[in-house]
């Protein structure tokens, strides 16, 4: 089964075509990472899949046409962790993660014991049980990122959209978060569609990569096929050396001489 298929999907904002007609398929259980220079349309692609921006073209989610999906139904299928999630002042971690249960709670209703149990299970799984009563704004960057992930998991969706999940983190925490996502993906059969800036670490975790430049897909395939000196040199206008690593190609920037 395909988690996502895009056929000729394009996004136009204020008269500018941010994303040119794009075809893309993400298989269920796959981790696909979208890379590309700033302004290439990576976040826009994710927002389109998340139903957060108007698009033209066709999309299916788990073989259902996305156009007919109600907002709540979509929220049960896919969960988004935006680049910089809002941190509501004064909100406890437990309440924040409970927001993830919104698609299961009637519009004027309240959380059921089942919702609470689902959230407690997620908190326990992410080693956040001890943080339940803490205010979100009092946590460190790495802890917060786990809480954002916990809210997405609480949605019970099998497709995770992660927009730059590691930007605010040091390399140790970057690895922690991505390892966690990978374990969850295996445990729960999740599909991951992410965007990333750090190319080496992106290549170590992704099954497949999509290189976007100026709103169009210029390369797609396993990391070794996309992370090449020629492609990166052309589309990032960067001088890099690509080394062979155990888990995937390692991209090292080289200062122009």
């Amino acid at each position, binding site marked *: 089964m395909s988690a996502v298929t895009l056929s000729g999907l394009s996004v136009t904002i204020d008269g500018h075509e941010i994303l040119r007609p794009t075809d893309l398929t993400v298989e269920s259980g796959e981790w696909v990472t979208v890379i590309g220079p700033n302004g290439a349309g990576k976040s826009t692609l994710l927002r389109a899949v998340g139903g957060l921006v108007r698009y033209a073209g066709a999309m299916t989610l788990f073989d259902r046409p996305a156009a007919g999906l109600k907002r709540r139904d979509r*929220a*049960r299928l896919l969960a988004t962790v935006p680049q910089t*999630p809002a941190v509501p002042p*004064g909100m406890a971690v437990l309440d924040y993660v409970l927001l993830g249960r919104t698609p299961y709670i009637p519009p004027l209703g309240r959380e059921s014991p089942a919702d609470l149990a689902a959230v407690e299970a997620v908190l326990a799984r992410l080693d956040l049980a001890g943080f339940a009563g803490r205010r979100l704004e009092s946590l460190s960057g790495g802890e917060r990122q786990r809480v954002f992930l916990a809210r997405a998991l609480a949605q019970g969706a099998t497709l995770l959209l992660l927009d730059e999940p590691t930007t605010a983190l040091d390399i140790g925490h970057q690895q922690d978060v991505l390892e966690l996502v990978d374990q969850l993906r295996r445990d729960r059969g999740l599909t991951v569609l992410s965007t990333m800036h750090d190319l080496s670490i992106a290549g170590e975790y992704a099954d497949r990569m999509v290189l976007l430049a100026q709103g169009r897909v210029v390369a797609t395939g396993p990391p070794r096929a996309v992370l090449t000196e020629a492609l990166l040199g052309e589309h990032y206008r960067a001088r890099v050396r690509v080394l062979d690593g155990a888990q995937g190609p390692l991209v090292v920037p080289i200062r122009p001489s």
Partner: protein
Amino acid sequence: MTATRPAGLRPRWLLAGVAAVLVAAFAGLAFGPVRLNPLAVGAQLFDLVPGVSVHSGLSEREAAIVTELRLPRVCLGLLVGAMLALAGGTYQGVFTNPLADPYLLGVAAGAGLGATVAFVLTHSFTATSAVPVAAFVGALGAVGLTYGLGGRYRTPATLVLAGVAVGSFLTAGQSFLQQRYVDTIREVYSWILGRLSTAGWHDVLLLLPYVVVAGTVIVAHGRALDVLSVGDEEARSLGAHPVRTRYLLIVAASLGTAAAVSVSGLIGFVGIIVPHTVRLLAGASYRVILPLSMLFGGAFLTLADLAGRTLLTPNEIPIGVVTAFFGAPFFILVLRTSRRLR
């Protein structure tokens, strides 16, 4: 884990709110420029309960002071305070702006213009029944104008900016009228400072349905407002409908505010101070803030009114002056001592 529960109204806070309302209401009934025995007032109140007959020992005139002067005034204070505080908490939630207050969308300016027009047209120094109606129409007209001008773009910021522009325009119109018809200045001025002094059952019955409807609609949306606190885009990704929720709540809060302002004049500060005090003391969830703001808002305004009519007997201090005079230092105190801000 079991020690941590989801945000919600805790019974002890609900009890505290109800107790505050009861204490404020009883104080408002028992004390005033005319000295009455509080115990006798209590007995007189019991006598009002159907099926109960108690002899309070109050004279007929004293009994009338309690049941016909003070009781409607206390009821009006509870309703106006509850409505203004609730509307303030609601605006702060829908605009995710801690400074939002019930007068943000031009409500006050519109009501002021409406009331001034009514004073001018009726040439009356005593409040007439036309004033609340005119104020209500003015307030609603202003809110409608604000939506018409700023709502089309559907962002909170444009709506607020349109509200500020509409408000300034209407205030200018109101000041112009006031200067042209100097003989109405006194009345208009006293109305602008807010008052419950003309309270009768008529005003209470006029306001009651608005408070009940707005209160029910808004309090039911407590969780929806909590979801809005992560911003529109994230709220949508969680399956919520932030724009729809926001507009419904703005309409409910504005209707209620217009009704409150039309009977009481412009009583500032309650809409900011009460919800923020509740937030600092009892929690940041709107499931807590909204119902508690109603209870404590009603109690606060009733006590402010009591202070206004007793401190300088036989003169009355305008209630808007009292709310700011006592409210501001109290709020600063809460702000400085609250753990939640650190």
